[in-house]
């Protein structure tokens, strides 16, 4: 072969490698499309056929550290649940609170003897899992409880929610049940409205899809109902080695061969962070927990098993497309940039295909999601429209209508087709994914300043909530890599769900 032939082969190989890099960026988009296409099959593949009216004796374990503002009303709401009185006990595990939590709980305990129990830990601060284990040990020491509900101190259960959850435990194959945790603050802001939409997508849509596929990623720690048998089978305690204790119990229960059920019609309201900084700290804990869980179960991934579906290809695809989303976005951007150097026309085609696909999946998933919870969907309509960010929306529009950019930008400004201005635009567009993550990081930093507090909402809409979550995931990689302090940090709750 001549030198020219070798160069041609090298060029082809390089182009294919770069295209593969770009294709990595398609993976999370395809994973999302897959989940939303699978979702309607929940009409057939669900657990209702095996559910039956069932009212087991339930011990509710409420971990509480300085929850004086919310704990009283939480207990009152639990006492008002539409559930047999003699089959419900509330055990509040007071994690050495320094506010009026003990007094509030003791008042309720005195008013409802035997139904409300106050358990005090004199040395607290070890984290939620340790606090829960203190209560679980006490509950399991007696034969009374047939099921254990683990919840957060601030969440509000709809009156029928527990009843709707326990009916699935009538099937002995079911180990645990979770509910739909909806953002429930009465005075929402831009952050909580984004979270409300995210919860619709991540729970009402994704968890139904996961049910169809046979493996659930996480039973929400705010409403996790375990059968006693299941909790005892996983050691009678919540794993304390990670920051994602709810995901750990979900995985361990499924590894034992027990089924996890998501009950979309059992609604639990929760108060979520109102600032980007508070959200960042909460999600960093979750994201680090997910990295730890991935490592902990490293031998499980993509290894099909007869006892569980966690090792299936579909579940692995869903899990890693979220965990590695920032890496995939960066890989696609690098691929596009290098392709631009060698084959600009192929880079342009790949870019347009990627963003057209992203637009189709985004429109489809958002349209489905807002219908799943129309009330919350309507309240978060702007956030639904701008979930990927204004920047990404523009890229989608340009990918779908290539002439748009000439019409509204290049021609009015007199930017010629082969000019440096066009090249700068192309580079910015190709690296928008990583750029928007950087922008989200900047939004968090800005929020701490007076001017930034005004600017951060519009900037969040520009860079997108998805980019913010990706930036947090990147932060979690670094924190885990550096083995930074993995202290459990509580999200502050002040009772906004109650109004």
């Amino acid at each position: 072969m001549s030198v020219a032939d070798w160069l041609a082969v090298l060029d082809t190989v390089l182009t294919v490698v770069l295209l593969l890099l770009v294709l990595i960026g398609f993976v999370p988009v395809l994973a999302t499309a897959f989940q939303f296409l699978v979702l309607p099959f929940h009409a057939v593949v669900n657990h209702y056929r095996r559910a039956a009216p069932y009212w087991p004796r339930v011990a509710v374990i409420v971990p509480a550290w300085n929850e004086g503002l919310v704990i009283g009303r939480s207990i009152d709401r639990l006492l008002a649940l539409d559930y047999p009185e003699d089959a419900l006990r509330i055990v509040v595990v007071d994690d050495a609170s320094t506010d009026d939590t003990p007094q509030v709980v003791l008042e309720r305990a005195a008013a409802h003897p035997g139904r409300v129990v106050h358990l005090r830990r004199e040395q607290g601060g070890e984290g939620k899992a340790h606090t829960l284990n203190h209560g679980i040990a006490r509950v399991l020491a007696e034969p009374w409880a047939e099921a254990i509900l683990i919840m957060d101190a601030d969440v509000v259960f709809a009156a029928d929610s527990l009843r709707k959850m326990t009916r699935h435990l009538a099937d002995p194959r079911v180990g645990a049940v979770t509910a739909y945790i909806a953002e429930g603050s009465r005075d929402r802001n831009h952050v909580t409205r984004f979270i409300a939409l995210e919860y619709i997508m991540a729970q009402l849509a994704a968890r139904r899809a996961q049910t169809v596929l046979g493996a659930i990623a996480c039973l929400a720690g705010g409403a996790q109902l375990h059968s006693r048998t299941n909790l005892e089978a996983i050691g009678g305690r919540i794993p304390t080695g990670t920051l994602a204790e709810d995901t750990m119990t979900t995985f361990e229960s499924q590894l034992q061969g027990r089924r996890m059920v998501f009950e979309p019609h059992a609604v639990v309201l929760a108060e979520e962070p109102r600032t980007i900084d508070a959200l960042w700290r909460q999600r960093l804990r979750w994201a680090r927990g997910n990295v730890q869980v991935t490592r902990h179960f490293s031998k499980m991934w993509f290894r099909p098993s007869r006892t569980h579906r966690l090792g299936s290809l579909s579940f692995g695809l869903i899990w890693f497309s979220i965990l590695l989303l920032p890496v995939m976005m960066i890989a696609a951007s690098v691929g596009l940039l290098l392709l631009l150097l060698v084959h600009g026309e192929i880079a342009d085609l790949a870019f347009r295909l990627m963003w057209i696909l992203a637009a189709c999946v985004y429109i489809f998933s958002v349209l489905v999601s807002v219908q799943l919870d129309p009330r919350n969907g309507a309240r978060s309509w702007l956030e639904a429209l701008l979930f990927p960010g204004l920047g990404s929306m523009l890229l989608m529009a340009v990918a779908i209508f290539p002439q748009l950019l000439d019409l509204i930008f290049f021609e009015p400004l007199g930017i010629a087709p082969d000019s440096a201005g066009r090249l700068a635009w192309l580079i910015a567009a190709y690296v928008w994914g990583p750029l928007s993550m950087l922008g989200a990081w900047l939004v968090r930093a800005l929020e701490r300043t007076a001017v930034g507090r005004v600017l951060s909402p519009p900037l969040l809409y520009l860079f997108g909530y998805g980019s913010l979550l990706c930036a947090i995931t990147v932060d979690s990689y670094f924190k885990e890599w550096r083995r930074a302090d993995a202290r459990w940090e509580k999200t502050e709750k002040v009772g906004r769900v109650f109004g």
Partner: protein
Amino acid sequence: MSDPTRAEVVAGQREIREDARREWRLVPKALLALVIVVAIAVVRELLLR
């Protein structure tokens, strides 16, 4: 605990059937979303022609 009454069991069974039926609404919801995406694609093709 006291055993549930017959009426409570019947009401519970009805509730399960209703919730199971509500899950069938996922199908038209997904179809509607799909139709809108296809409609946007058709409009795009018409505009670009």
